[in-house]
């Protein structure tokens, strides 16, 4: 379908206009996807939270409360944008865009199906890590330029946390790259199509890497039990205390999109992306996005399960967990994986 649209565009328009329209179309597609995913993940989170706490959750707006988050978004758009007079206005306004643009760029390399992937770069995994390391700048800026002590403390915590846990995310993905021998996401999936999902191929070290990735990924997105950044009981709302209306909504949306990105990376690297389990629906193309969505929602549910189950960590416990447990474990795991591959013990 994408191919036919591409051909049709190039047949009716001169080349430069066609490529420009194509870029605009892709951008609109991704922005729509961005908004829809963000809004419905918020709804899912509220429903899951209600389920865990034996409540009903949102159920008034639309059937089963399906339009609740749309109504919330409309409310946020119409809200007045307040800000402090003592803030550094330029940086204060810039900060939300950092967070949201990096999330959008990271989304562009993820293969949703065999053909829906905006940017199939040959260093896919590395590019994802590089881009996601920039997002934290937005949080640091927002916290500093608000000129508020709670924001500043939240921003500092976020910086420390993200820089530490990035190592674990990177190393756990590298463990899996050892199996495929390529960083390109489409090739990683092609490898899994041939030899089975990576989590089965790599068995024990792959499962360890997956667990480390999930812990570090949850910490990267600043979600509970790692939500010291916006610890409500001690810091107000952390780094976005001073934000209101749409600017607050950008931070809020970006958190959920980042969760989606972490889940999609996990699905792509460990669970075969859009592939069906054991190739049961190999040839049916329209099932690919459905398999992808099912897997991603499964992983996201796992992350929500974490959030409503575990109490928040203290900052020293958080750093101890990363530097004294996860990082050494991760380094050992890479060596084990290398030995497994060297001896040909993969499945």
């Amino acid at each position, binding site marked *: 379908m994408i191919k036919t649209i591409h051909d049709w565009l190039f047949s009716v328009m001169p080349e430069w206009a066609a490529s420009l329209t194509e870029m605009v179309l892709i951008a609109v597609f991704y922005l729509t996807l961005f908004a829809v995913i963000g809004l419905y993940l918020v709804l899912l989170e509220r429903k899951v939270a209600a389920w865990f706490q034996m409540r009903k959750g949102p159920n008034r707006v639309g059937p089963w409360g399906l339009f609740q988050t749309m109504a919330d978004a409309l409310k946020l758009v119409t809200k007045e944008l307040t800000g402090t007079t003592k803030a550094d206005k330029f940086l204060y306004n810039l900060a939300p865009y950092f967070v949201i643009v990096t999330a959008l760029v990271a989304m562009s390399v993820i293969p949703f199906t065999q053909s829906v992937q905006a940017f199939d770069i*040959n260093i896919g995994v590395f590019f994802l890590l590089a881009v996601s390391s920039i997002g934290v700048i937005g949080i640091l800026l927002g916290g500093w330029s608000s000129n508020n002590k709670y924001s500043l403390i939240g921003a500092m915590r976020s910086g420390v946390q993200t820089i530490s846990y990035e190592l674990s995310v990177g190393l756990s993905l590298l463990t899996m790259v050892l199996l495929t021998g390529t960083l390109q996401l489409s090739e990683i999936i092609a490898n899994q199509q041939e030899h089975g999902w990576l989590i089965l191929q790599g068995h024990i070290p792959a499962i360890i890497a997956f667990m480390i990735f999930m812990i570090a990924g949850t910490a990267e997105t600043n979600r509970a039990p790692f939500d010291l950044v916006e610890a409500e009981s001690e810091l107000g709302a952390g780094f976005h205390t001073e934000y209101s209306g749409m600017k607050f909504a950008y931070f809020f949306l970006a958190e959920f999109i980042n969760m989606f990105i972490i889940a999609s990376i996990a699905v792509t690297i460990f669970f075969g992306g859009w592939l069906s389990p054991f190739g049961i629906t190999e040839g049916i193309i329209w099932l690919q996005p459905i398999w992808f969505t099912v897997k991603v929602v499964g992983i996201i549910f796992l992350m929500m399960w974490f959030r409503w189950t575990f109490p928040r960590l203290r900052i020293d416990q958080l750093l101890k967990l990363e530097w004294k447990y996860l990082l050494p474990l991760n380094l050992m795991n890479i060596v084990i994986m290398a030995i497994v591959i060297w001896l040909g013990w993969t499945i």
Partner: protein
Amino acid sequence: MERIIFYILAAIIIIFAIASVSSKKMLRAVIYLLFVLIAISGIYFMVDYSFLGAVQLAVYAGGVIILIIFSVLLVHHIELNLELASTKKRVIAALISFAGIAMVLPIILTHKFNVVENSRTIEVKDIGEKMLSYDSGGFILPFEVISILLLAVMIGAIVIAKGNRLGLKENQETRDKKQDIINQ
């Protein structure tokens, strides 16, 4: 198309580089520098050298800038402005930068740039193999030297960070020994 994107990137680099050195607010200067670095990585992506582009993003934009922001957060209050340098210093700096431009610009304008035919995307695999090969043209020696240098830097950092406490312990031990001797 590519030409337009290149000019946009070049304009971003020049404008934000000037903004970065002339800004009086420290954190704003850092953010302008960040824009410059991101635009440079954009140029790397344009010439299809995506590995270097991603390294630029991860190391400079993601690493160095975050470290600078951290130090600014720790030492700099939001209402402080940077002091202007003295007129004499500014004049000297302007002269030196103009001298630099005068040297570089004629070279760029007179040099004939070759168009590379059949350019091939460089893959990480090639870089990794070159890095560990000890044939001629391999980079194993510089790679190992840099590894040792980084190890030394890391140990140095730990010693500096822990230095006082290590010293304290030794002092206590020597004091204890002296006490023992006195007791005896």
